C-alpha cells in the first residue's frame, strides 16, 4: 500500500506553473527521490507534501488520509531543511525534543526519546550544545534526529546534503540511506545531484518543468531512460540518428577499435582529444559524418590506447543502444 500518494497535484503562481499535475505513489518504507534541475518543481512538490502551501489542484494522501487541506502541524511529517532550520535559541537536545513537547509527551519519555534519537545520529555527547557551537555535519544530524524523533509517517528531506563539503556529503549519503532502511521510514528526498539519487534511492522520479518524466529504480532510469531529457540529465549520452530513428549510447558502453566490429552500431571516426581522468580515459571523437562522440575507457592497463589523430572505429553492441523517443509522447 502506498504511504504517500499524489494525484494530479498542481501548483500555479499566477501564469507560472510550478507543478503541472503529477501522480506519484511512494510505497511503505520506500526511499523515493525527486531528481531534477533547479526550477523543475521538486522543492515545490516537497512543500506541497509538507503543507507549507496549498496545491492549486489535486490531492495528497499520507497513510491513506487526504491531507491537502490540512496545515503542516496536522500532517504527521518530519522535514529536514536544506539550511537545517534549527532553532538557534535552543540546545541540540531541546531542538530534538521540540516536536515531542508540541505533542505534550511526559518529561521522562521526552528525555528518553531525545537521548535515543541523539544516539541514533551519533551525537550522544553534544546534546547541551547550541546550533552555533556545532559543525555543519553535526547540525545536519541534529536536524535529522529532530525530524525522526516524532516518528512521522513520512520523512521529507530537502537537499539536506548540499551545504556539506564533498567528503562529508559522501559519508552522509551512505549514513542517511542506511538509517532510513534500518528504521523503514517512508522517505521523499529532493536533490539535483544525480550521484546522490542513484546511490541512496529505492526509486527515483526524474522531474522536468513541473512534470515527472520517468519513475524507476536507479538502474532503470540510468540504463533504460524513456525520454531524451532523462537520458541527457542523468550521466552522459551520445545521440545519433540511425535510419531516421534516434539512438543513444553511454560513453562507458561504447568501444574503440582499429578494426570494424562484426555487428552492432558502428561508425568510423578520428580521435580529436584524449582526457586523462585517472581511473579512466576519455576520448573525444569526430565521426566521419561530422558528428561528435565521447567514449570513456577504464584505465585498467588492458585496453589499447589511441593517440590524438588516430583513425578508429566507434561501436556499441545492440544491447548498449537505447532507443529514445525524440519527444515526450
Amino acid at each position, binding site marked *: 500500500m502506498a504511504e504517500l500518494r499524489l494525484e494530479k497535484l498542481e501548483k500555479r503562481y499566477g501564469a507560472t506553473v510550478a507543478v503541472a499535475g503529477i501522480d506519484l505513489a511512494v510505497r511503505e518504507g520506500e526511499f523515493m527521490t525527486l531528481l531534477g534541475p533547479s526550477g523543475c518543481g521538486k522543492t515545490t512538490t516537497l512543500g506541497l507534501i*509538507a*503543507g*507549507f502551501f496549498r496545491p492549486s489542484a489535486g490531492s495528497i494522501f499520507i497513510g491513506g488520509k487526504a491531507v491537502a487541506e490540512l*496545515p*503542516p*502541524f496536522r*500532517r504527521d*511529517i*518530519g*522535514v529536514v*531543511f536544506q*539550511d537545517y*532550520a*534549527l*532553532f*538557534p*535559541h535552543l540546545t541540540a537536545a531541546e531542538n530534538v525534543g*521540540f*516536536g515531542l*513537547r*508540541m*505533542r505534550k509527551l511526559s518529561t521522562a519519555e521526552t528525555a528518553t526519546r531525545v537521548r535515543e534519537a541523539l544516539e541514533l545520529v551519533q551525537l550522544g555527547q553534544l546534546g547541551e550544545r547550541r*546550533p*552555533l557551537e556545532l559543525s555543519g555535519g553535526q547540525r545536519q544530524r541534529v536536524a535529522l534526529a*529532530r*525530524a525522526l524523533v*516524532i516518528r512521522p509517517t513520512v520523512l*521529507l528531506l530537502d537537499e539536506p546534503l548540499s551545504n556539506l563539503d564533498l567528503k562529508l556529503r559522501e559519508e552522509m549519503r551512505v549514513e542517511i540511506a542506511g538509517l532510513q532502511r534500518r528504521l523503514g521510514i517512508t522517505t521523499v528526498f529532493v536533490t539535483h545531484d544525480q550521484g546522490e539519487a542513484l546511490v541512496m534511492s529505492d526509486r527515483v522520479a526524474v522531474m522536468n518543468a513541473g512534470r515527472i518524466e520517468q519513475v524507476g529504480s536507479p538502474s532503470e532510469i540510468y540504463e533504460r531512460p524513456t525520454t531524451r531529457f532523462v537520458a541527457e540529465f542523468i550521466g552522459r549520452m551520445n545521440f545519433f540518428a540511425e535510419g531516421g530513428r534516434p539512438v543513444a549510447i553511454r560513453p562507458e558502453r561504447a568501444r574503440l577499435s582499429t578494426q570494424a566490429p562484426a555487428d552492432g552500431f558502428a561508425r568510423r571516426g578520428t580521435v580529436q582529444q584524449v582526457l586523462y581522468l585517472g581511473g579512466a580515459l576519455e576520448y573525444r571523437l569526430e565521426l566521419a559524418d561530422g558528428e561528435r562522440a565521447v567514449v570513456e575507457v577504464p584505465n585498467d592497463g588492458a585496453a589499447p590506447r589511441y593517440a590524438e589523430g588516430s583513425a578508429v572505429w566507434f561501436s556499441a553492441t545492440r544491447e548498449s543502444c537505447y532507443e529514445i523517443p525524440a519527444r515526450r509522447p
Partner: protein
Amino acid sequence: MKPWAALRAVVMAIYVFMLGPIVITAAVSFNQSNRSQFPPRGFSLQWWQRAFSAEWVDPLVFSLKLGLLAALISTLLALPLAFALARHRFAGRDALAALTLGPLMLPALVTGVGLLQLFQYAGAREYIGFTALLIGHVVICLPFAVRTIAISLQTLPPNVELAAASLGASRAAALWHVVLPLIKTGIVAGAVFAFVHSFTDVNLSLFLARPGEQPITVKILGFLEYGFAPTLAAVSVITLLLPLVLVVIVERVSGLGDFIYASRSRG
C-alpha cells in the same frame, strides 16, 4: 598628519564635545557658592539636597511613569504592526507604514501643537496633562519600537517557522516558542528606545503639560527662565543617569548589547 592621527583627533574631538558638557555640569553641581562656577569653588552637597526635594522628584517620577507606560503601550502596539509590515503585502500597507513611521520625520513640536488643538476642539480639555502626554508620547515612540521589531523579524533565520510547523506546532505555538524568543532582544531594544525617547522629549511635552502634571524636561526648561542655579546641574545629572542606569540593567538582563552592536552572528 597621518590618516590614523587624523582619525584619532576626530574621535577625541567627539569625546570632548560629547562628554565635556556632562563633566562640567556634574562638577558645577558640587559648588559651594550659589553661582554656577566652573571649576567649582569648594565642595558641598546642598544643591543635591535641593534636587531631591518634592519640587524636583515629583516631575522626575512623573517622567518615569510616563516613559515606562508609553514604552509599554507603544511596544504592545508595535508587535502586530511590525508583523503586518514586515511579513505581509496588503492593500493600504504603504499608507499604514507611512502613518506608523511618519512621526519620525515630523517635528514633535508640530505633533504637539496639533494634539493640543485636537484636545481643545474635541472639548477634552480636562485630558490635557498626563492622558494627553501619554497619547502623544505613544505616537512619537511607536516608530522606534516598530522599526526595531521589524528589523529583528527580518533577521529571523529562514524556515524556522516552517520547521516548527512540521514538528507539530500550531501558528500560536510557533510564535510563542520560536518567533518571540528569537526576536526578544529586538522587542526589548524597541521598548528601551521608546522609553528613552519619551523620557528626553521636550518639544511635544511643552504643549501638553499642565501645572502639577509636567515631565522633568519641561520643569527644567521652565526653571531655566529664572537663571541657571547649581540645583539645575544636580537635577540634570540625575535626569541623565536615570535612563542610563535603566539601559545598563536591561542590557545585562537581556543581552541587548548584541542587538545594538550586532556583535553576535546568527546561525
